[in-house]
């Protein structure tokens, strides 16, 4: 399918970087122990201890973008219901079929580290992986923040578990935590996070230099390589490119007329197909609620307590009201004309409250929202014609409001 927006020059470097990352994981370069982790895990600690973090979520997204129905079906044959998270099904299915899966099913972990700050599903998923691979699993339990405040006992609980995680890693990876090294990794992580936030912030420009699909594609290093010099170098390159586009007035979407906010994880199997419906009518997604999950620096001070604050405070660990407020805030900051919500069958924390959030956001901003149901990774849940009709009607309504 033809692209409706200019290709990023940084794309080549991104591909090289991610191939190298997966190559390291599969080749166990330098004999480093490999830990499979969730996207909300405190990866800085692992990197500081020379444990190589690998992300089954990222792997599942890559597989999904290439078509992962056979992997879903492999998990379903084991008894996992089609109603369960498709990332989990892809990952479990890939582990089951091993060498026949993309990247040989991501190889084999030495350790598993899961953090429930994004959902409870990752815990069940990683329990299944722990059983399959017979490797140790550490659960970092980060209490949900129903009132959006981090109370003292939750902070002490998580900081204490981070101490436990250090000792657990020291025992299993036969490495000591070097505090100076941790400080270096945290500095790199913070620099990466700041660059990523600034890149996203550049989309406040009119026209926007990047669109959300660009961010979806380029977010892999902020997830997988946070805390490395390679991630910093990549995001400096991307930042320069986006900044140059702003200076030159280059837009992600030719003839930008409408600016939109995206809510939820991408629809990886149809990412270009789905988003191509918008540029045709001059609609550009300039902000989103997903790629901003990695936009909080680790504060200065005692590092484990600072890490505890950061990983407790991520977007999805907050109340629905907070998430709706954040959306309204983004709509204001990025001057959005509307928002599109993907009710993602695979992600209940992101999706169950969306009908309510849609009303809250529209009440707060006055802009309309489209809500439709699909799935981030299982294309069988994508109703092509129905979604196209809803998108068409939404864009026509935006046209009507503009005229």
């Amino acid at each position, binding site marked *: 399918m033809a692209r409706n927006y200019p290709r990023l020059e940084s794309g080549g470097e991104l591909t090289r970087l991610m191939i190298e990352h997966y190559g390291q994981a599969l080749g166990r370069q330098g004999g480093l122990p490999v830990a499979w982790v969730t996207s909300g895990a405190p990866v800085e600690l692992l990197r500081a201890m020379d444990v190589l973090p690998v992300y089954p979520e990222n792997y599942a997204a890559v597989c999904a973008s290439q078509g992962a129905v056979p992997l879903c079906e492999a998990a379903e044959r*084991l*008894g*996992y*219901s089609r*109603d*369960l*998270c498709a990332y*989990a099904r892809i990952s479990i299915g890939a582990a089951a079929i091993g060498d026949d899966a993309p990247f040989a099913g991501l190889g084999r972990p030495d350790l598993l580290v899961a953090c*429930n700050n994004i*959902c*409870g*599903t990752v*815990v*069940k*998923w990683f*329990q*299944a992986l722990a*059983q399959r691979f017979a490797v140790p*699993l550490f*659960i970092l*339990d980060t*209490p*949900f923040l*129903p*009132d959006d405040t981090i*109370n*003292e*006992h*939750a902070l*002490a*609980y998580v900081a*204490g*578990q981070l101490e*436990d995680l250090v000792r657990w890693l020291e025992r299993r990876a036969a490495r000591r935590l070097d505090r100076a090294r941790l400080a270096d990794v945290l500095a790199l992580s913070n620099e990466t996070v700041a660059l990523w936030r600034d890149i996203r912030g550049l989309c406040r420009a009119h026209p926007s230099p990047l669109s959300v699909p660009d961010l979806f594609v380029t977010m892999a290093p902020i997830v997988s390589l946070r805390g490395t010099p390679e991630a910093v170098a990549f995001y400096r390159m991307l930042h320069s490119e986006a900044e140059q586009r702003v200076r030159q007035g280059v837009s992600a979407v030719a003839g930008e007329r409408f600016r939109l906010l995206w809510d939820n994880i991408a629809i990886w199997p149809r990412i270009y197909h789905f988003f191509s419906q918008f540029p045709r009518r001059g609609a550009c997604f300039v902000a989103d609620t997903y790629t901003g999950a990695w936009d909080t620096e680790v504060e200065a001070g005692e590092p484990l307590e600072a890490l505890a604050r950061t990983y407790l405070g991520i977007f999805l660990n907050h*109340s*629905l*009201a907070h998430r*709706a407020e954040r959306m309204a805030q983004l709509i204001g900051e990025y001057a959005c004309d509307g928002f599109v919500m993907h*009710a993602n*069958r695979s992600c*209940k*924390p992101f*999706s*169950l*409250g*969306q*009908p*309510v959030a849609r009303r*809250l956001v529209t009440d707060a901003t006055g802009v309309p929202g489209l809500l439709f*149901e699909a799935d981030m990774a299982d294309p069988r849940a994508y109703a092509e014609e129905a979604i196209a009709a809803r998108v068409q009607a939404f864009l026509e309504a935006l046209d009507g409001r503009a005229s």
Partner: protein
Amino acid sequence: MSAGIGVLGALQEAALRPLPALAAGSLAGVACSYTPLELLHAAGLVPLRLRAPGLPAPAAEAWLPSFACPLIRGVLGAALTGRLDALAAVILPHTCDSMQELAGIWRALRPAPPLLTFVEPLSLEGPRAPAYLRQELLSLAGRLEHLGRPVAAEALARSIVLYNRLRRAVQRIDSLRDRLAAAEAWAAIAAAWQMPPEHYLSLAEALIAELEARPPRPAQGPAVILAGSVLDEPLIPELIDALGGRVVGDDLCNGTRDAITLAAESGDPWAALADRLLARPACPAKHAPGAPYAARLANLAARRGAQGVIQVLVKFCDPHGFEAVPAGQALAASGTARLFLEVEAVNAPEQLRTRLQAFLEMLSAPADT
């Protein structure tokens, strides 16, 4: 009608009614067995389980996607009709992603009643979980006090004793299932969640006395365990009765799962409450690697001499959906048959009947045929 049947009838009626006939201002709605009932009772409240009793919930339809579980759909539906407005409070523990989101949705749509969240640990065996949970219980007590419902340690200690007695009564009814039909046992146990504990105890202890005086029913028909999350209506046990099966044990959220573990009656009552919640048989939403759910089901089936386990999966329940796989493996390894029965908000009895009939017939068939 004997006195015993009258008692049982009262329990059956209580298990099925949406709200007891009490002053609503003293009721606290709870939606999960991880709610610290003793704490609510010590605050002068009557904990009442919010049921999602197999009915459509039209008021909730506009506010939930199609893949929301029937439990939160039913509870939200009841809340949005205003039927729960007069409750003194609703307590929603953070058991799973769906329960987490229910709190936010409810809060946004309906100002009454006051919603209190309670974030218990997910990782139950972690060394830091008891201290965290004790503080979280104190935090909940602080919020109850803010509602004019202070909790004194002495009152909490008394409520612990009362609920221990209630749980012993549930355990005893569970052990006397051979004198009850499956639907009767379901109601006698589920009613513990639907009425004031003192009232339940008076009925349950009378029922126990009655049952102890009765001979067991003839042990005919295949023996099964009923497992799953919440079973809010008696349809499945009624069908099992009608098809000649026997339920010899359960692992249900509103069954015996929460009744197995008692709290310490001496020492710090806050720590006792925390320790009980962490030690009780875990919901599949939790991480408890030392006591896996799958092995628990297989052991229960073996201990009770069950030939099969009927695992009821509430549609879109992720924790139970994931655990269905290791549970199936563990049951197969122990030679126990398993019927995996997915249920929705509203179920067609004939479909359930057909599947249960096939399963029970298979269990009844001689092994060599």
